């Protein structure tokens, strides 16, 4: 019997961080948080969980990427939903902040266009610092296949950035 209250208390902050980092606003992160735990519940019914932390991180990443995909499919415009919490922060360099915001927005958009498994592998590796073996375990593939997925994801992201630069020009 899984005590979900304890699991939420223990792993909730990590799930929240993963969701918020990928989605960038409170409302979407909250939705993703709930969906992650519901998916984990369904997963637990199917099979035994050995590492809740890794499972929840992987599920949060997958749900966040789904959400990003829905977001960019729904709105053709380039604007991102505003997070009013940003307005309260005292920012010493607005230009730098704007550049970073633009970069993160481009990366999120590019991630939403990647195939699900590649996007998940990329996020788990570069945002959650998981090893190839951990990624392979979580995605149910071999370590070599995880490496291939990461390579493809990077190549596609580079291409996507190149396209966005051309579009800007």
């Amino acid at each position: 019997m899984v005590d979900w209250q304890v699991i939420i208390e223990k792993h909730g902050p990590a799930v929240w961080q993963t969701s918020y980092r990928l989605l960038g606003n409170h409302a979407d992160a909250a939705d993703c948080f709930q969906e992650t735990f519901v998916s984990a519940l369904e997963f637990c019914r199917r099979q035994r969980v050995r590492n809740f932390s890794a499972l929840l991180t992987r599920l949060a990443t997958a749900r966040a990427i789904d959400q990003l995909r829905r977001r960019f499919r729904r709105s053709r415009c380039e604007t991102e939903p505003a997070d009013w919490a940003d307005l309260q922060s005292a920012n010493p360099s607005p230009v730098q902040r704007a550049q970073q915001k633009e970069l993160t927005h481009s990366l999120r958009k590019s991630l939403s266009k990647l195939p699900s498994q590649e996007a998940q592998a990329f996020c788990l590796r570069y945002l959650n610092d998981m090893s190839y073996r951990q990624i392979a375990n979580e995605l149910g593939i071999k370590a070599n296949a995880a490496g291939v997925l990461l390579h493809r994801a990077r190549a596609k992201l580079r291409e996507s950035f190149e396209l966005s630069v051309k579009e800007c020009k």
Partner: protein
Amino acid sequence: MEENENKLEKAIEALKNEQIPPGPPQELADSTLAKLAETAEQTDTVQQKNRILMFEGLRTAKSLTKIAAAAVLLIAAGYATGRLSAPRSPDMEQIRAALEPEIRKNLLDETKQYMQLGLANAYVRIQDELSQQYREDLRRAVLQSVTASNAVTNELLIELIESFNEAQNQDRQRIAAALEQIESNRLRDRDELSNALATFALETEDEFMRTKQDMAQFLSYTQPEQTNRDEIGNSDK
């Protein structure tokens, strides 16, 4: 190419270092727990429905088995009739010996299926009843414990408030006693000071009067001598 690589690295770095507000908020954790409970309950209901559907299927299969058994019996009876109505007199013992194990086997299978189905139904029903009863007991126990803990908490709070009030009253009484003491000390000091001042004034007055008398006496001693000198001076002239 390199420029894009750098840009990608920067984007990863920016996304990784983006400031994330602390979370999740408590309301979100609570609502997630509620949603998990709701999902679990829904899944249980679906599983139960599936189980019921499975048993209904078994029931249909059971009626099919009955029909099959009846068909077998009918065929066996027809076969027996055919054999009996044949010109050659059939060997009844042989027919019975041939049919009996089949019929017996069919009967046994059917009975076994009946029993299994009945047992399975009873098992499911008992399981449901037990789980329901367990939930009821658990809910009742939780309610009782919550009520008891509320009562105990209220009592403790009342005791705490009373002890606060008592301590406040004691403090007030002590402060009042101290103020009274200060007031009585002030009055006593004032009386002593006024008495001392009166004594001092009287003594000063006495001393002043004595000095005045001494001065008068001194003046009365010195004046005649002066007049005598003046008189002597005048006579010399």
